[in-house]
């Protein structure tokens, strides 16, 4: 579709985790707040605007954030609460919008193309924003433009708690003075590469031949150049199936006791496998990730017949861990991921699965469904469980 005819709205909840915490405890209003792993080795997952003045940003090591802003109140964070509020917002959007894409826990794209015939898109967007603020109590910003990329950049400029419309003739002048860092898809590395070339603002990037950008940034380069020119034809995808589930854990102290590491992996696997079974899904690919003390990160994965059974997945997880852990170095992080998920059930094996085992799983799962998944687990994962947490 022609870009000029499209109207894309990007909605982003401001400092989402912090806002949720403030909603639940009004004493936190207007105080510097950091949400993230509270140990020295954790990272900042969200921080309030008050802390940003000190140079804190999300993704920064907690230790550094604490040094920069010692006054900040540290909060461990409660993912369950955050997803609850996120759902609340999604429900409001689903109620109003024709097509929406949930990009992440706090971001949504809406395709409003064609709605300007009946409502002014800006008026409609403002009303939607007010409704979200009123009903959820969370501050939210939006950017409205002709494509996803410009809408997202506009939201970034509108923040905090603002709104911005960039009409099609304003796109190029709007982008021109901005830093190339603001283009979605330009990460730290691409930013530095371009900086060394003397490219700083989007206006400069526009003048670089697209071939050259593609040469230095790889296959992503052409897209980046197009985005710098306000061109982004990616559609708003209404529905995104969760393609994988996973969990990972950074330790307080690096560790090398393989027996314990295997227990932790078993505990993670058990927890994820239950999650699969609860959602009536099965996986066909298991990935184990480890990060050594020197931050070298290695992963190993294996395709398996569709399964959601602890005992099979734990065995595969253990084998993969033994393969991937091949250096005599302490480990900082381990993670387990299941991908290639499909909705379905486990096909029982004539020679391996017994009816007793199936009933055992069913009994365990019904206990977990009723009393929570911490109520019963394998002895093997007992100690690993403490590290993984509930």
């Amino acid at each position: 579709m022609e870009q000029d005819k499209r109207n894309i709205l990007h909605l982003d909840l401001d400092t989402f985790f912090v806002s949720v915490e403030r909603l639940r405890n009004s004493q936190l209003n207007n105080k510097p707040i950091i949400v993230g792993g509270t140990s020295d080795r954790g990272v900042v997952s969200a921080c309030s605007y008050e802390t940003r003045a000190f140079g804190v940003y999300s993704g920064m090591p907690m230790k550094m954030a604490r040094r920069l802003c010692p006054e900040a109140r540290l909060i461990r964070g409660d993912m369950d609460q955050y997803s609850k509020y996120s759902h609340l917002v999604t429900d409001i959007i689903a109620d109003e919008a024709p097509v929406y894409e949930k990009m992440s826990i706090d971001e949504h794209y809406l395709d409003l193309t064609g709605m300007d015939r009946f409502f002014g898109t800006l008026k409609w967007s403002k009303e939607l924003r007010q409704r979200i603020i009123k009903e959820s109590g969370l501050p939210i910003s939006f950017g409205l433009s002709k494509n996803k990329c410009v809408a997202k950049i506009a939201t970034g400029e509108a923040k905090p708690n603002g709104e911005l419309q960039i009409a099609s003739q304003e796109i190029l002048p709007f982008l021109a003075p901005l830093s190339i860092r603001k283009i979605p898809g330009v990460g730290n590395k691409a930013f530095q590469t371009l900086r060394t070339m003397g490219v700083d603002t989007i206006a400069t990037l526009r003048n670089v031949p697209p071939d050259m950008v593609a040469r230095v940034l790889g296959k992503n380069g052409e897209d980046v150049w197009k985005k710098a020119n306000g061109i982004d034809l990616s559609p708003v995808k209404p529905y995104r199936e969760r393609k994988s589930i996973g969990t990972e854990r950074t330790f307080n102290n690096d560790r090398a006791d393989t027996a314990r590491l295997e227990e932790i992996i078993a505990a993670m696997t058990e927890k994820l496998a239950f999650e699969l079974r609860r959602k009536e899904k099965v996986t066909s690919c298991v990935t184990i990730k480890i990060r050594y003390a020197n931050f070298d990160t290695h992963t190993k994965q294996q395709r398996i017949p569709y399964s959601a059974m602890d005992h099979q997945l734990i065995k595969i997880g253990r084998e993969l861990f033994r393969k991937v852990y091949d250096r005599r170095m302490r480990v900082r992080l381990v993670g387990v991921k299941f991908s290639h998920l499909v909705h379905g059930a486990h096909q029982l094996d004539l020679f391996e699965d017994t009816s007793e085992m199936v009933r055992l799983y069913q009994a365990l799962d019904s206990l977990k469904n009723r009393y929570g998944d911490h109520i019963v687990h394998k002895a093997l994962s007992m100690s690993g469980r403490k590290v993984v947490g509930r």
Partner: protein
Amino acid sequence: MNFVVSSTDLLNHLQAIAKVISSKNTLPILDNFLFELKSNVLTITASDLETTLVTSMEVENAEGEGVIAVDARRLLKLKDTSEQPLTFNINTETLSVDILSESGKFSKVEQKGDDFPQPHEVDETKKTEIALPAEALLTAINKTIFATADDDLRPVMNGILFTFSADYMTAVASDAHKMVRYRRTDITSEQESSFILPQKPAQLLKNLLPNDESEVKIVFDHQNAIIEFANFVQVCRLVEGKYPNYDAVIPKDNPYRMTVDRLDIYNKLKMVSGYANPASNLVKMSIAPNELKVSAQDLDFSMSAFERLKCEYEGEEMEIGFKGVFLLEIIANISSTDVFVELSDPSRAALFLPVEKDDDNEDLLMLIMPMMVNQ
């Protein structure tokens, strides 16, 4: 050596054995047919090292004797020519082969026949010999081959297990999710013996065996088998190893029995399984007295389907899940008008049995493991 042969006659023999030639051979010589002429009999061999097929035919105007390996791909192009006598002029010294047709000539330098690998041999001291009608072996393969596995981790299950005893011959195939046991009480052997025939030679036999009472002779040891019938000989390597104890996993006392019309359930399942998730292919059967409901759904693409059909059932109401393709394969391979489905609970194997037999000597049992469905 020289001989004259009818092109269609030769082609029939070549095509019968050509399927053994693998498209990705490790040895280039295996892309050839081995021709061996002795008096007026031409023996043609094709092989993929594991399996060797040999056929023989009479030729006219035969002169001389010898062996030569002839390019298979080019020779098989005969299928596009009309029926005509072909004259082969072969010089085993220079390896030149001239084929004279009615209106042309085809020449190529071929390869030495002696380079062609010899078929495996059966150890004379350990061999067992069995003779049975071709029809019995063919039916046994036809009924079981679909259930063989394709699993590198459990190679024994990639074949059909044949066992011979004083009471019956049994053919068993299973991929650990479904299983077929086909028995023939009219075929017996005083000596207890068994072998596992891999999938490829079984498939080749399926295409070659005549469906009649003619005799098939099987000679085998623990490694190889020689199967002779009509004017063919198949020499193949067997799967070595111990087949899992399949008898132990066949439920002996499934208390509930359902009777359904086979074609009815087949057609309805086929339709319904199209609406299942393509990867897991889960189809649920909800069984109640007098009514069976088959249903499927795919939440990812929000589609669902169900069909009801009549059944006779006495027992507890039950919901049990199966892989749709397995169910279809099982039902397609039973030939009676009605089938019995014997069940005990949703986590145990279900048995599928024909209600009436084609032949009194036959005993067919099919088994399928359910999928674990949340209750």
